[in-house]
């Protein structure tokens, strides 16, 4: 009952905000007017805001922006000893700095490090929080470029990446984050520049109370589905997430944009009902997933939960089990990856659901922007499958899908599974790497150890960022391997999506006929869910059998 009421509260909040927020985003990306701050920014950076880009130019801008962002974040971390408010922390090792930079630029926010022991306030605010905004704005920009390509009229360009990036940041993410930060402050999240406070406890012991600009970073961490914690314990840390009420708010914050984007999509393509079919698929998959995970945790199978009487290891009392599983489901279904409980200590099936959520490809509803373009790729594959069954040429929103489009969509969908399975294979089959993984990285042996590694590669390749955190990921091999998985898992689908957008944009929508497969109906929603499940289930079933299934059965 408590679970249903909390789930209902989240659903109600999203039902209320998705239309106005989706509409506001559609306006932000289609408006012809530039704000004064934006004009100043375009002048200072030499951007011509009215010059539109081809798909190739748009993609090159994304790549260049991301790579230079990585260099800048590495530089900020290495300069840490010279930066103010660093609490005397040294510069991180280069492989760790690189992993962290890739992680935040790709909107993954995988953390090989323990933040309070590694990064000072300046490096977090100037390096990580800034990329929390920008990586989310990149995801939004790519999604919107694809929306424009699916609009009926034929066009040669996809818009300007620089304008989309700027508007997403200044018109959407910044105001939402500021408002969220103030609410989190009221709830007890800290925001100061004080060094950790050393105090004497009631019993005469000592305790160190941490500080930092947490509320500002926390807000965008959630709104932008980034998920990188200011503290090691992430959103289970009382200074990031002080109460059950702030926890529920956090879930709404990171679901808000992903569940509103289908509305934005519907408005930009001129058919809101198309967005409704997609949001329906997202909502159904998310609901089934969270119900299954909660059922597993409440049933508490397994040796440790049985010994304790409940699956409370790695969970905070103030959130309870429903408050923990709602968060764990939502964070793995979006590409957020922040946690308010430790997934590694979940029951085998509960932890397995967290993995399966990511393996769906982060589309239900997925990360900011990335979930929506991921879902549109699956929609295109779904119409293709349906077309094969009924013997018609596939088309989506009147745009004919040829071999080139199908090739691009399929390639984009298999990038992440390929990265996960290749990364796992290398880590376990190459002797030297296996020694590093087993000797230095894994906390557990057997099936749970396999799950720790599988979770890590799944999280990296799908740009989620959560972990079975017993894994020691700060080794040369895992920093580099997971870094590569995050980078390719982010940029390769983006390039393929933009190429797909380029070829779809050039086509004019054909008028609907009696032979057109409608893509706004519940039947299509079902088809889309089926396609998503078949693709992930077939790809990952063997790996899941060796990890969570072996552990739980």
């Amino acid at each position: 009952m408590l679970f249903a009421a909390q789930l209902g509260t989240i659903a109600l909040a999203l039902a209320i905000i998705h239309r106005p927020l989706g509409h506001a985003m559609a306006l932000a990306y289609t408006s012809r007017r530039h704000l004064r701050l934006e004009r100043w920014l375009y002048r200072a950076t030499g951007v011509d805001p009215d010059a539109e880009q081809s798909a190739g130019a748009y993609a090159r801008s994304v790549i260049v922006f991301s790579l230079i962002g990585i260099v800048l974040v590495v530089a900020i971390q290495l300069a840490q000893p010279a930066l103010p408010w660093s609490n005397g922390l040294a510069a991180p090792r280069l492989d760790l700095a690189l992993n962290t930079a890739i992680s935040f630029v790709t909107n993954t926010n995988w953390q090989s490090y323990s933040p309070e022991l590694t990064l000072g306030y300046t490096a977090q605010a100037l390096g990580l929080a800034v990329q929390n905004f920008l990586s989310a704005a990149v995801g939004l920009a790519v999604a919107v470029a694809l929306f424009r390509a699916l609009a009926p009229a034929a066009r040669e360009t996809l818009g300007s990446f620089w304008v989309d990036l700027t508007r997403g940041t200044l018109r959407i993410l910044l105001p939402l984050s500021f408002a969220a930060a103030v609410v989190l402050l009221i709830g007890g999240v800290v925001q100061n520049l004080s060094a950790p406070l050393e105090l004497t406890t009631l019993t005469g012991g000592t305790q160190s109370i941490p500080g930092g600009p947490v509320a500002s970073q926390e807000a965008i961490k959630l709104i932008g589905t980034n998920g990188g914690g200011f503290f090691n314990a992430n959103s289970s840390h009382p200074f990031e997430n002080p109460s059950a009420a702030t926890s529920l708010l956090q879930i709404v914050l990171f679901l808000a944009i992903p569940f509103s984007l289908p509305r934005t999509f519907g408005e930009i393509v001129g058919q809101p009902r198309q967005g409704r079919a997609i949001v329906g698929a997202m909502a159904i998959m998310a609901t089934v997933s969270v119900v299954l995970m909660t059922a597993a945790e409440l049933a508490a199978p397994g040796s440790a939960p049985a010994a304790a009487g409940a699956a409370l290891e790695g969970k905070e009392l103030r959130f309870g089990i429903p408050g923990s599983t709602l968060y764990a489901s939502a964070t793995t279904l979006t590409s957020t990856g922040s946690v308010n409980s430790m997934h590694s200590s979940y029951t085998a099936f509960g932890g397995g659901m967290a993995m399966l959520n990511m393996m769906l490809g982060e589309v239900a509803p997925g990360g900011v922007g990335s979930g929506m373009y991921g879902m549109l790729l699956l929609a295109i594959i779904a119409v293709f499958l349906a077309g094969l069954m009924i013997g018609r040429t596939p088309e989506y929103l009147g745009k004919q899908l040829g071999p080139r489009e199908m090739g691009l969509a399929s390639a984009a969908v298999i990038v992440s599974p390929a990265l996960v399975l290749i990364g796992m294979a290398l880590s376990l089959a190459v002797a030297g790497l296996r020694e590093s993984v087993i000797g230095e990285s894994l906390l557990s042996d057997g099936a749970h150890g396999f799950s720790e590694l599988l979770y890590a590669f799944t999280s990296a390749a799908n740009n989620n960022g959560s972990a079975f955190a017993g894994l020691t990921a700060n080794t040369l091999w895992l920093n580099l391997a997971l870094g590569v998985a995050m980078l390719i898992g982010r940029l390769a689908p983006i390039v393929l999506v933009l190429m797909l957008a380029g070829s779809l944009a050039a086509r004019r929508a054909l008028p609907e006929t009696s032979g057109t497969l409608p893509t706004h109906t519940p039947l299509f929603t079902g088809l889309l869910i089926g396609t998503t499940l078949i693709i992930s289930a077939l790809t990952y079933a063997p790996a899941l059998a060796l990890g969570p299934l072996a552990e739980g059965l």
Partner: protein
Amino acid sequence: MRHPLLRQSLTALRVLLIMTLVLGIGYTAAVLAVGQVLLPSQANGSLLTHDGEVVGSALIGQSFTDDDGEALEQWFQSRPSAVGYDAAGSGGSNLGPESDELVAAIDERRASIATREGVDPASIPADALTASASGLDPHISPAYAALQAPRIADARGLELSAVQALIDRLIEGRTLGYIGEPRVSVLALNIALAELQ
């Protein structure tokens, strides 16, 4: 400057630097100003004082043990913690559901709490046996607090009913009746205990 890639790189660098100013400094400073001016208590960690000294944060748990980690019998005890309530770090055990180490730890905690409190091992609630996610969980369940009350009354020479009244006063219910779990803050309980005498 002619090459488009070089031109895009320069644009990217300029955008990054300006965004770092606006978002990294401007936004952070704006939230800092709101926090420090309008909400200083929360923004600085919801600190609690006793006898004029800051003794902890209302949000962050503490251990009430001696230097060897043995429970001090005159204080309410917190949940187990993977980081020993050292707030310079944070985190959980991350041990899996089939971990022998975790099962052994739970069994040992059950036995030692049963001895300490003089209760039936089967009556000990799960929160007393498991480490939290943050290692800084400030709360215990009302059941675990009630279970500790006789030992504390004994150690402090208080009436049991006085200790129980303290727990009842400090129990926090679910927000709006359905969000979160009923709980009681161990530090708040222990400060109240200290103020009784």
